[in-house]
């Protein structure tokens, strides 16, 4: 057991630190141009798409350097590296693995530059956790696919220029996974309609997307026809050790402690209530276990082994914690808990009330906790499939 960095890794860490010293002013001293400036500088450093091959414009960074970079960034509360969230998370990696030369040149630079957003058309009304049962149809017609059907839970569809879409191109296959094809679709295509979904917290992040004879050129197919499932799995299987989520949760925990110190409950600061104190440090203990689980997974990766179902461990933790932090925050606020933004006693203008209603985005989106438990039980513990 040894957490020391090699001299090369230390040098890289120092490089990151001095970059941050020079280019990251404290949050309250950032001007209106800071965001654009930041994006340009980290792009120049090749820190956007840091782990991608250099020949596509990525940074060619090693796994360990990636961890160091993210760690330093998080500690300094730096803005994200790049702004095209889904493009960086899985569209890019899928393109790198399955895209044609032409597709790579057409899309990857824009993803790295954050020119526009991508959205993801996977889930359907009847295909949620059982994604491979999807029905949205793509029928080949000359040099085009004609798409008909519906997608749902498509995050940021209304602000996206492109969508990575899964359609069924073959209904005759024995194994349902085999008849799926991956298409890249422009959101302003004729016949494509986006209808935002209002969530229970009043926000509109998701949308339904309807396809009525939407024509997609064959050149926008990613991978072969019928290969869509592999394209998807390989992108989603760029499994990470979950260390990145640790920093976000830790920041929320610090903020929660602050709330407990500043909020009166039963006539004294909530931070003095034994039940509240224990609940907070219990959550903190779970967060710390996520960090250390992540270190064990990372150790495995550094030894050249692939991660598989064990990453469900941290996904489950994260799901429980997203719910628990909101619950603790409402308990701290006591009688002000059910208030909403605009009500004077609601701390931080209702931040935690919104937090307490927004967890499904994370908890359901990444595969529900019960699905994660099935994965662990079947693939790790070897219990029979349901």
């Amino acid at each position, binding site marked *: *057991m040894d957490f020391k960095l090699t001299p090369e890794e230390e040098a890289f860490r120092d490089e990151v630190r001095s970059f941050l010293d020079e280019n990251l002013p404290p949050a309250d001293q950032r001007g209106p141009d800071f965001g654009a400036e930041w994006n340009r500088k980290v792009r120049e450093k090749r820190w956007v798409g840091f782990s991608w091959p250099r020949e596509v414009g990525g940074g060619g960074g090693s796994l360990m350097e990636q961890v160091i970079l993210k760690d330093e960034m998080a500690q300094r509360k730096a803005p994200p590296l790049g702004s095209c969230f889904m493009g960086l998370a899985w569209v890019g990696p899928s393109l790198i693995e399955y895209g044609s030369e032409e597709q790579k040149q057409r899309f990857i630079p824009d993803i790295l530059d954050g020119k526009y957003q991508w959205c993801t058309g996977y889930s359907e009304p009847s295909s949620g956790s059982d994604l491979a049962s999807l029905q949205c149809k793509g029928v080949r017609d000359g040099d085009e696919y004609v798409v008909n059907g519906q997608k749902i839970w498509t995050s940021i569809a209304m602000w996206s220029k492109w969508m990575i879409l899964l359609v069924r191109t073959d209904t005759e296959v024995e194994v349902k996974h085999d008849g799926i094809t991956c298409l890249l679709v422009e959101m302003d295509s004729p016949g494509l309609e986006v209808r935002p979904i209002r969530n229970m917290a009043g926000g509109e992040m998701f949308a339904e997307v309807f396809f009525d004879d939407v024509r997609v050129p064959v050149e926008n197919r990613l991978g072969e026809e019928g290969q869509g499932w592999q394209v998807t799995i390989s992108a989603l299987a760029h499994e990470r050790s979950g260390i990145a989520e640790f920093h976000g949760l830790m920041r929320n925990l610090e903020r929660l402690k602050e709330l407990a110190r500043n909020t009166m409950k039963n006539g004294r600061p909530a931070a003095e209530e034994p039940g509240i104190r224990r609940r907070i440090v219990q959550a903190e203990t779970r967060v710390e276990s996520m960090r250390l689980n992540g*270190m064990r997974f990372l150790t495995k990766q550094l030894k050249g082994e692939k991660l598989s179902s064990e990453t469900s461990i941290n996904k489950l933790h994260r799901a429980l914690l997203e719910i628990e932090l909101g619950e603790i925050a409402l308990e701290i606020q006591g009688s002000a808990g059910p208030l909403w933004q605009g009500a004077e006693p609601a701390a931080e203008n209702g931040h935690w009330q919104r937090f307490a209603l927004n967890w499904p985005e994370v908890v359901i989106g990444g595969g529900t906790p019960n699905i994660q438990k099935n994965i*662990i039980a079947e693939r790790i*513990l070897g*219990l029979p499939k*349901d």
Partner: protein
Amino acid sequence: MNFGFTEEQELLRAEVRKFLDQNAPLEVVRKQVETPEGFDRNLWNRMGELGWLGLSIAETHGGVGLDFVTLVVLLEETGRSLFPSPLLSTVVSARAIELAGSPEQQARFLPGLADGSKVGTLALLEEGDSFDPRDLALVGKADGDDWILDGRKRVVCDAANADLFVVAFRTGAAPDALSLAVLEKGASGLSVDDWPVMDRTKRLGGLRLEGVRVPADSLLGAAGSAAGVIGSLVDLGATGVAAEAVGSAEAALQITTDFARDREQFDSKIGRFQGVKHPLAEMYVDIESFKSLVYYAAWCIDQGAEDASRAASRAKAYAAEAFARVGIDGVQLHGGVGFTDEYDIQLFLKRSKWVRPAFGDADYHYDRLAALGGL
């Protein structure tokens, strides 16, 4: 960066597991606990010969001089097989002597603890049942350079088998004026209670001190200087208990998973039902997670890291809560047979009851974490 064990440590794990599988499977453990001492002295001595009992004691004192991380491997394996022995008690008492004892005291006591010829234990708790050293009430009465003790210690691990007692007591009015001394079995005025324990693989008892004289040369360090050492012993003990719990909980999960794969109801293996799968998956998640916390705490202890107390508290709090659930769910998932003496799962449920309070329960450690973490 490597958050894993070395090849040597993995080799040790394989050796220990083989040794325990051969010599102390559960049907043998069930017999060992029926003996007056409750453990097998021959096996204990052989483990001493193999160097396992003195794994983390310095070579100059007859040990092997390895770190606590390596000892965690041994503790996980003894935990896995519910091996009855005073291993952890002896390790903690040796650490007290290493941390605070003079070179003479170390030369006198450590070799016996390293080879297993002596069993040691820490006598800390009292009627107040607090792991916070500042709550200790037993007061030493000064008599020249010696101290006289009158009072009781309770819930002392392996009291009936111990040859050496590291006793904590108060030598002044200030909250931190605490001392540790080594008392030997048979000292005048010292007597031991041996209590029945729910988990028969563990021994617990009490100490009665009636005018027991603590000679000045039995004190570990200067009088009133032991508060910090006691804190370190709690860190070590809590992490050690949690390390044993990793092995025990993994074994309980394995036994229950095997049962679920085998048992049929409603024309199906019960392991196919999500009502059975999900609690098993939860056990797995919890065990892997407190395992990570245990390994990190052990590493912090070896490094003398500032974070050691928090790391130990996290490991023990999570282990106590999670193993308690593993025990209960394990028995429940077995259905009726889980409740029988014949099936082994109940032995693990009982072990979880021993683990819960040992070196501080979850509430104690959460409170300590809150105080150390800015709440």
